[in-house]
């Protein structure tokens, strides 16, 4: 088993599927759908296998030897030409406690949204081919440890997303798609610049003793690997580390999306088909926070600590701004989109706490938000499929007509407002415990608790306007959920309840890594600080 390249399989399987789909005739829609479902379910199984084989005691983070399921071999090796020198890029995959929850999340969400995609009937072949490509891109980001590879996967996900929104979207799909694309591309440019800067500042010693520039992310985390005159080297008195940090941060922040870079999200969500909204909110947004955690925190610990107050501040703004703006929305899906912004604020706030409780809370919140928001978007999809409108005020009294659906909605809504016993509570509580425990951002943490209140406000108000009250006669013909919708919502509900009661299942998974990260931040920050 040890030699089985499971990470490659879980990452590249969808691409394989895509290739196969390209050879299937266009009109064999059932086969295409079935194949996609098969592939995503294999992914879920692989994720579970990974989970079963995961060693909880190994931390990873900055320590190459304690990453797990490592696959590393020379991928591109071009003998030096002119000033660039020898270009050596590794195919380097590996996971630790920070990425495992997200790998699992990606697998689950892709599986669920495949089910949700079954209602697509416009050029099915193209859709599922794009879908699988997207799947690979997302999975790849979470498992790659080589920055070049990371960036490729990062960009790989962009293109299918553009088409998925732009072709299968709603009435303003072109606007939404181009907005999404440009926004994210802008972020990617910043990231790319920083990556190049890092590349030319970091060297790796090969077996024969020669030093070459490297894209190895783990090497980039160790100050010892920086050449003295690299532009991003901490040893260089005129380094541009601050700017590079900002570039990376903005690049990732656009993906989160962090205020004020968030306006692509509501539009993209509103126009995207349900399954794509699910993926967008469920997985894509996490890539931003994951990037900050994996890249900014470990490669620029001293600047992270310097700016931590601002990160927390933006977290707070996200929480409160998102919640308040959500309250004013008339479109159900837009409301959920803004609630996503609010919830991602908790992730930022938790990360800003720089201690185990907060960062665990943040990673857990990524996972929980993934499942909860996925459920919320599916719920919007269920009603949109039937009523073909998302106007909140146009509904009313659906609880009479669709009791089971309302039951699921209530569960999801209360999970989203952090009701104890459901998964959202634990992560929010941890975020607050952590951020309150960090003196610098204590006040911000206290103000952010307002988000809990506002969340309850808009969620319950929505619940009331759509589901409670007298049944609007217009909707007296709507049917309750069908089997496919059960198949999507029941697993998510079970996950939400399970993690609410037994959060240790997820917390233990990441605990070692998070502790390592916190230790790293507190120590290496000091080390780098003394250099400067």
């Amino acid at each position, binding site marked *: 088993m040890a030699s089985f390249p499971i990470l490659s399989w879980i990452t590249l399987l969808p691409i394989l599927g895509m290739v196969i789909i390209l050879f299937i005739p266009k009109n064999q829609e059932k086969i295409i759908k079935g194949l996609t479902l098969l592939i995503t379910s294999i992914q879920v199984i692989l994720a579970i296998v990974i989970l079963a084989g995961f060693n909880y005691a190994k931390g990873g983070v900055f320590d190459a030897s304690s990453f797990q399921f490592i696959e590393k071999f020379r991928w591109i090796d071009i003998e030096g030409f002119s000033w660039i020198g020898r270009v050596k890029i590794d195919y380097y995959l590996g996971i630790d406690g920070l990425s495992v929850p997200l790998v699992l999340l990606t697998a689950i969400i892709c599986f669920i949204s495949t089910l949700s995609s079954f209602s697509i009937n416009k050029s099915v072949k193209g859709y599922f081919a794009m879908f699988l490509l997207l799947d690979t891109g997302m999975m790849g980001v979470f498992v790659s440890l080589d920055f070049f590879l990371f960036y490729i996967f990062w960009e790989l996900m962009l293109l299918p997303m553009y088409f998925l929104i732009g072709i299968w979207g709603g009435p303003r799909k072109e606007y939404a798609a181009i907005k999404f694309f440009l926004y994210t591309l802008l972020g990617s440019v910043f990231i790319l610049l920083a990556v190049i800067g890092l590349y030319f500042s970091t060297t790796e010693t090969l077996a024969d003793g020669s030093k070459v520039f490297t894209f190895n992310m783990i090497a980039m985390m160790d100050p010892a690997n920086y050449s003295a005159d690299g532009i991003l080297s901490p040893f260089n008195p005129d380094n541009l580390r601050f700017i590079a940090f900002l570039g990376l941060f903005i690049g990732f922040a656009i993906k989160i999306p962090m205020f004020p870079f968030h306006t692509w999200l509501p539009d993209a969500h509103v126009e995207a088909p349900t399954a794509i909204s699910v993926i967008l909110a469920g997985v894509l947004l996490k890539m931003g926070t994951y990037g900050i955690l994996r890249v900014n925190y470990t490669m620029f610990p001293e600047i992270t600590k310097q700016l931590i107050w601002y990160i927390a501040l933006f977290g707070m703004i996200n929480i409160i701004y998102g919640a308040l703006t959500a309250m004013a929305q008339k479109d159900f899906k837009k409301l959920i989109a803004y609630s996503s912004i609010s919830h991602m604020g908790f992730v930022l706030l938790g990360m800003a706490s720089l201690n185990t409780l907060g960062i665990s809370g943040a990673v857990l919140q990524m996972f929980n938000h993934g499942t909860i928001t996925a459920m919320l978007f599916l719920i919007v999809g269920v009603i949109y499929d039937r009523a073909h409108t998302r106007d909140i005020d146009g509904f009313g009294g659906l609880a009479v007509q669709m009791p089971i659906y309302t039951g699921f909605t209530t569960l999801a809504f209360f999970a989203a407002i952090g009701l104890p016993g459901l998964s959202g509570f634990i992560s929010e509580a941890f975020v607050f415990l952590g951020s309150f425990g960090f003196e610098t951002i204590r006040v911000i943490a206290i103000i952010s608790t307002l988000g809990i209140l506002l969340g309850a406000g808009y969620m319950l108000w929505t619940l009331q306007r759509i589901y*409670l009250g007298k049944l609007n006669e217009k909707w007296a013909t709507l049917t309750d959920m069908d089997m496919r919708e059960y198949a999507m919502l029941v697993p998510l509900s079970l996950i939400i309840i399970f993690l609410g009661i037994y959060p240790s299942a997820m917390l233990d998974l990441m605990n070692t890594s998070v502790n390592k990260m916190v230790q790293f931040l*507190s120590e290496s920050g000091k080390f780098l600080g003394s250099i400067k």
Partner: protein
Amino acid sequence: MDLITLSVIILFIPLLGFVLTLFTGMNFKWAFLIENVLIVLGFILSVVLLYNKLSGYLDTDIVSEFNWINLGIIPFFGEIIIKLGIKLDNVAVIMNFTVFLISMVVHLFSIDYMKGDKRYSRYFAYLGLFTFSMTGIVVTNNVLMMYIFWELVGLSSYLLIGFWFEKKSASDAGKKAFIVNRIGDLGMFAGILILFVTYKTFSFQEIFNAVAAGQLPFNSEFWLTITGLLLFCGAIGKSAQFPLHVWLPDAMEGPTPVSALIHAATMVAAGVYFIVRIFPILSGDALLIIAIIGAISAFIPATIALTQNDIKRVLAYSTVSQLGYMIMALGIGAYVFAFFHLITHAFFKACLFLGSGSVIHSMHHEQDIQKMGGLRKKMPITYATFLLATLALSGIPLTSGFLSKDGILAGTLAYTSLTGNWFFTFIGFTVAMLTAFYMFRLVILTFHGEPKNKEKYDHAHESPFFMIMPLVLLSGLSIFIWYTPNPFNADSGWVLSKWVKAPTLSVPESARYPFMVEEQKQESIVKQEEEVTFSHEYTHAMHSAHVPTIFLSGFVAGLGILFAFLFYQWKKLDPNKLAAKVKPLYNLSYNKWYFDEFYNSVFVGGTLAFSNFLRWIDNTIIDGIVNGSATLTRGVSKVSGKFDNGVVDGLVNFTAYFSGFIGLLFRKFQTGKVQTYIVLVIFSLLILLFLFKSF
């Protein structure tokens, strides 16, 4: 079986009922029986628990906990293990018993009351969820679990208040209850954060021990006070204290048995119970503020209740007022009596609510007392039980209410004698009088006099057995004999002398009330007459306040009842004339002091306006910038497009035209005739010959 296991079983029985009833209720007509049978079972087990605890472990607390989240040793914090657990002390088992008793009678009452509702079994499922959450609050040993169940109580109350969600007012009320509670919970959560950051634990006992050992939040007594007050915020929300009391009257939109269970006896008692739990770490300043909030909450709703016409609303305001009483009692140190009043109040207020449910049921959902009257003859048992509970609420001797209320009033007197502060005494006695007045107004308007709505009166009838039985049971519990053999002195009863005792305080002595500081044990006063609460000084003050209180409280209650009869029964005085005379005061009371209007316009309206403003910002400013930059880019691209077409392309095209022109010129030579070519070749050769001639 040990008591902890028993308690865990009791805790999860209602949850089991909830799950089973919810999932079978869709297709199975008798699903509600599952819940009912389980709750009766739960009640029997809680009696067993109560008996075993009080007989076998009277003075020991049984605690058991397990590791819920074990983070091990983490940087900055040390070892973090989040534990959940159960603590069974006397207070907990008594409360547990109370919760199950009332929950059971409410279940039984509902069988008939809710008959015919289209979501019949779901109603019982929700009741089960509520009972589960409430039991969790009661038996927990740590503040995190308290918060967890606290929120779950909020959820079940949301579901039950909004049970008839087709009515907009009901779904509004549910939402309001949840959100207003959340406001309080925010404070509580902040308090929990402070506790956790300071003590790295959630356990009550460990926190108490740490405080007693001198470890304070941020090392200051001030922050201890703040922490206490923040935690108290939770109680303000749950127990509907001023200024968050507004949700409780609205919550009457729920089915009446729910009001009896949640909004009279259990959920709203949770706040008081929570203060009882954290009492040892409340500093003197915190207690004073708590007492003031309690006093205000006792007074304002009492004045509102004077003029309300909805039978349930009167009871609701009365509940807020009585809860304020308890909170005030805690604030001035009358810990034991506060808890005692919590229990007695739970019984007779549940009885009153169920009685009102019985009335509403027989009057076909008429709730306006102005339209009732004379029901005494139609519903004798309901009348009798209602009257008994009213007497208890008014604090008439021989009832349980007298015992507990008297204790609280004695507490206020003792407080006055110790500190010279008359405020609480004044409020206490005034509210006692107001309570007696409005309760008898309610009784007289409902049951006495002539029926005002003849048609409904004719159809009125005594309720069926399952509705009457709970009334009898609960009103029976409003008699003194269950609590003490001496109807005038609760201290001699078993509840107070043996079961419930004031806890040892953990607060540093410098931060306590002066009278709560224990004296130096310099003299050998071995005259151990009885239990000493807080200090000898305080115990003495309580004793000497006891006798005057009996007379004084009897007097004010009698006065209140007398006026009620003068106004409504004998019509010697005309309430309308009085109302006209003090019009502004009357309006203030009738309109509930305009709290709702104020909150709606300021907080709700403000938030909504602000959120709309933010949406505008989002759509106009931020998106404006985004779209603007897009437009700008497009503009620039247009210009550069022009440039491209005009200049760059112009150059390119010029080149093309030029070469075309040249081509045109040379085309002339291209005749297609071989002969021409040959001539050209020959000429060219000749030219070349001349050119290269020299070489």
